[in-house]
């Protein structure tokens, strides 16, 4: 059911873990489904220097989390905010229809982390 890319990202997820000195953290969760994604950012000069995730969810949830961190790394915040669900799913060579909402979650978690960073650094 899953593409090879999804399986690869599930088996060897990129950027798993926490960042202790993260300056942006976003968490989204869909209580009805039970899945939770948490993204940690290190932003420097408006650029995502480091990013890590933790995810409780299905195979697609893990893979989309992994993919979104890869896509976001090195991007400016503006570029990262433009990362859409569709882009994440596409980068994974597609997701089964039932699992499309997982890609929403990954992008949402990223955006939440960026917003968190921006909130914290508004005054700057």
């Amino acid at each position: 059911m899953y593409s090879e890319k999804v399986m690869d990202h599930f088996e060897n997820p990129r950027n798993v873990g926490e960042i202790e000195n993260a300056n942006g953290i976003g968490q989204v969760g869909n209580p009805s489904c039970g899945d939770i994604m948490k993204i940690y950012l290190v932003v420097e000069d408006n650029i995502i220097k480091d990013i890590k995730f933790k995810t409780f969810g299905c195979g697609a949830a893990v893979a989309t989390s992994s993919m979104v961190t890869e896509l976001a790394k090195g991007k400016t915040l503006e570029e990262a905010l433009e990362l859409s669900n569709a882009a994440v799913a596409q980068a994974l060579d597609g997701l089964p229809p039932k699992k499309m909402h997982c890609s929403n979650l990954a992008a949402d978690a990223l955006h939440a982390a960026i917003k968190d960073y921006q909130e914290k650094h508004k005054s700057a």
Partner: protein
Amino acid sequence: MRRVYFDHSATTPIDTAVVDAMTPYLTEYFGNPSSFHSYGREVRKAVEAAREKVALAIGADPKEITFTSGGTESDNMAIHGVAYMNKNKGNHIITSAVEHHAVLNTVKALGKEGFDITILPVDKYGMVNPDDVAAAITDKTILITIMHANNEIGTIQPVKEIAAIAKARGVYVHTDAVQSFGKIPLNVDDLGVNLLTLSAHKFYGPKGVGVLYIRKGTRWKQTLMHGGSQERLRRTGTENVPGIIGLAKAAEIVSANLQKEQDYLTKLRDKLIKGVMDNIDKVILTGHPTQRLCNLASFCFEYIEGESQLLSLDMKGIAASSGSACTSGSLEPSHVLMALGLTHEIAHGSLRLSLGKDNTEEDVDYFLEVLPAVVQRLRMMSPLAED
């Protein structure tokens, strides 16, 4: 890579003796059993012999055996047929919160059609309390449908006690024995039920064929499908002959080997349960500690989601399931695990390992070897495990 099939509750491989029994009916003996001529008669004879075998296997009379397209159809037929034939007597139906969807959704659909339904709760082991059944029966109760053994957690229900209570109150009992047949000795008179469901592909028979046992004298009628007059008007449509022959052969084989398989599987299952409980922390065994199917071990692993777990095991060649096969792939948490009083997060971490006669100690060893790393890796990724 080693492949280990631990999903016998979802479906079983067909016994080679069963395939051999079916083959002539896929080739040489192709007649329609309703046909008058020799091609029909030779097949009719085989279908009736199959009916006798099934009757023998569950202690019934051949006339009480109706062949269907599977467990789902048998459940629907049983419940709908009793409900509509006994409307004049009452409109109350009792079931439990841990039934298979084929039962639960049928009862709920009747609820929408004006029947009064009671869905009994279960204890933390998934067991229905016979006292609750007794208390729920009213003058209007016409049917109690409680499964023999649960497909997700393996808990064996006190069907015999429930049937005794029901009988004293003049209420019919249906039991879904899809998971128990071939694993627990099963006799319809001993159980005391009026209707009972079997599905061949759960006991090394083919998919797409099942049985509905209907005790003589039960006020029941085919109410779902209309058509020709096959199966003494109980199930219309040309009979799935190779399926019926295969089902009967499979029933014969599992009945003959019951004691031996039960002992063997109990040993494997206990080794598996012990191995998991001893080597993994934050895990609970779901289902009853002792009143459980000999082939079923089910757990919930904290901080882990079921599908990720299945996928990880699958990558190691191990086939397992999380909750019922029918609902995996859907995003709902299993109604059975919810009924045990588990939280959503815990329920999502469920893993069901259902063993079969071809599994070996080595299969269990391999699983126990692979599992810790799988659990550790997923927990490491889990935001829930932090705290």
